[in-house]
């Protein structure tokens, strides 16, 4: 699949060069979508400096309606129901996103949740990612009654958060977010509390950031690399060192204080299991976005690469989600190692890293078949985690007594304080991964191979 891109095309791979017809002949079958991101509101009450929606290449939000219209909402729900029915999905994940989803109104969101649960013939897991500034008791009571789990974005303490997460008038949002998080962490609402997402700023002290997040008693944390690519390099350097510092503080604690998704999934990959978060490993992506105007889009954060990068040209009024399964970007994000550059395919940690987050591979004029712009940092982090875990496991296996698990789930028993581990495992029935040979590859943590 050598690039033969047209001059000036921002992403010839995969948009021009990926021969999907040939792949289908060779046995490729798309994996149905399981995660539907509904951008219910296109505006935000914050003006975060690193936001891929408002501050990066794609400014299409300016032309969007503020809130999803009743017609688009109804049609999107029908399309999700149609997809679930057609593929006999046991469950779907609905992720309320924005903009700031709470600007749509908590009652409106609860009505949407009820509509989805009424019409979609599958179990509906509802979650929301919010900036946290609007989380007040009446809002939380409505969301709790609608069984919506809530993730909050926060970058650390007041200083760390204030570097980027500010209101348009420059005020730091930390105080308002902290008020919301303290309510969410209280026993009354803790069942709705999914965790905290933090975007890394290497100028913040890593341990201080981790401990500031921990103070809000999150069941889970994730640490996101700032969106960057080969044309727009990351702000600053030292991401591996920063992450390793947090890893050591977290891993070395006498008890697990929270789950850090990036590290938790990295350990699974190092142990030989597939990692269950995009940006690591080679599992197929099954997420699709419905924008506020009803446009069906690819991974939202692609907007950080170039204008229109997330567009599919499809709309819920005229296209099913199956139509989006055939889009080159969807296919590229489902074919594992076959989507990676030659450099990645030759790399000893390829199956752990998986090439990194898809938008981070972008280079103008070539597209997305490149190593991550964070390649060196990922390599160092993976090497560190692998060595740390290997040392401990080798010590534990010294006695060499084999456990007979007998295929039983939870053979070692559930441990207290596992937080979101049980809930945050998006699963698909094995038959949706295609034929048995491909299933075996996915189950073992690999990806589809060319040929």
């Amino acid at each position, binding site marked *: 699949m050598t690039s033969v891109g047209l001059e000036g095309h921002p992403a010839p791979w995969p948009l021009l060069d990926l021969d999907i017809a040939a792949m289908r002949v060779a046995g490729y079958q798309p994996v149905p979508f399981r*995660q539907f*991101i509904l951008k219910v509101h296109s505006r935000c009450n914050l003006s975060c400096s690193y936001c891929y929606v408002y501050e990066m290449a794609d400014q299409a939000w300016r032309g969007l309606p503020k809130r999803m219209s009743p017609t688009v909402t109804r049609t999107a729900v029908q399309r999700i129901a149609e997809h679930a029915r057609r593929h006999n999905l046991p469950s779907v*994940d609905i*992720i309320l996103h924005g903009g700031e989803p709470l600007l749509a109104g908590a009652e409106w969101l609860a009505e949407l949740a009820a509509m989805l649960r009424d019409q979609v013939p599958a179990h509906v897991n509802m*979650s929301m*990612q919010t900036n946290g500034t609007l989380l007040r008791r009446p809002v939380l009571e409505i969301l709790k009654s609608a069984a919506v789990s809530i*993730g909050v974005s926060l970058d650390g303490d007041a200083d760390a958060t204030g570097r980027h997460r500010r209101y348009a008038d420059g005020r730091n949002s930390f105080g308002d977010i902290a008020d919301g998080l303290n309510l969410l962490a209280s026993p009354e609402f803790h069942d709705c509390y*999914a965790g905290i*997402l933090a975007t890394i700023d290497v100028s913040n002290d890593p341990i201080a950031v981790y401990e500031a997040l921990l103070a809000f008693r999150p069941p*889970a944390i*994730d640490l996101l690399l700032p969106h960057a690519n080969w044309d727009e390099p990351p702000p600053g350097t030292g991401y591996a060192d920063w992450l390793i510092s947090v890893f050591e503080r977290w891993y070395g*604690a006498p*008890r*697990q204080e929270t*789950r850090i998704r990036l*590290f*938790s999934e990295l*350990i*699974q990959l*190092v*142990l030989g299991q597939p990692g*269950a*978060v*995009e*940006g690591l*490993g080679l*599992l197929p*992506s099954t997420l699709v976005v419905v924008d506020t105007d009803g446009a069906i889009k690819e991974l*939202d954060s692609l907007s950080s690469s170039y204008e229109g990068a997330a567009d599919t040209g499809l709309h819920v009024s005229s296209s099913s989600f199956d139509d989006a399964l055939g889009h080159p970007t969807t296919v590229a994000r489902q074919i594992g190692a076959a989507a990676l550059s030659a450099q990645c395919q030759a790399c*000893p*940690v390829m199956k752990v890293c998986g090439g990194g*987050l898809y938008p981070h591979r972008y280079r103008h004029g070539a597209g997305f078949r490149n190593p991550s712009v964070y390649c060196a940092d990922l390599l160092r982090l993976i090497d560190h985690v*692998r060595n740390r*875990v*290997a040392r*401990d*496991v080798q010590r*534990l*296996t010294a*006695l*060499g*007594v*084999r*456990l007979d698990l007998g295929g*039983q*789930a*939870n*053979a*070692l028993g*559930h*441990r*207290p304080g596992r937080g*979101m*581990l049980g809930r945050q*495992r*998006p*699963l*698909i029935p*094995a038959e949706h991964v295609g034929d048995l040979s491909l299933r075996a590859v996915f189950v073992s943590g*690999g990806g589809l191979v060319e040929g």
Partner: protein
Amino acid sequence: MWNQELGSVIPDLREMSADRIAELGDTVLAHSIDLYFQRIAEDSVLVSAFNSNI
């Protein structure tokens, strides 16, 4: 096993002693091993979660 391609070889966790696992208490490694065996026992295939949501 792919991990043998790496500098550090991760032993087969099924070779671990139950007593040694118990010694881990409530640590991150204990949770990780727990999750490892849960996923082995799952009758489904994992997919990758959206990372801009937790």
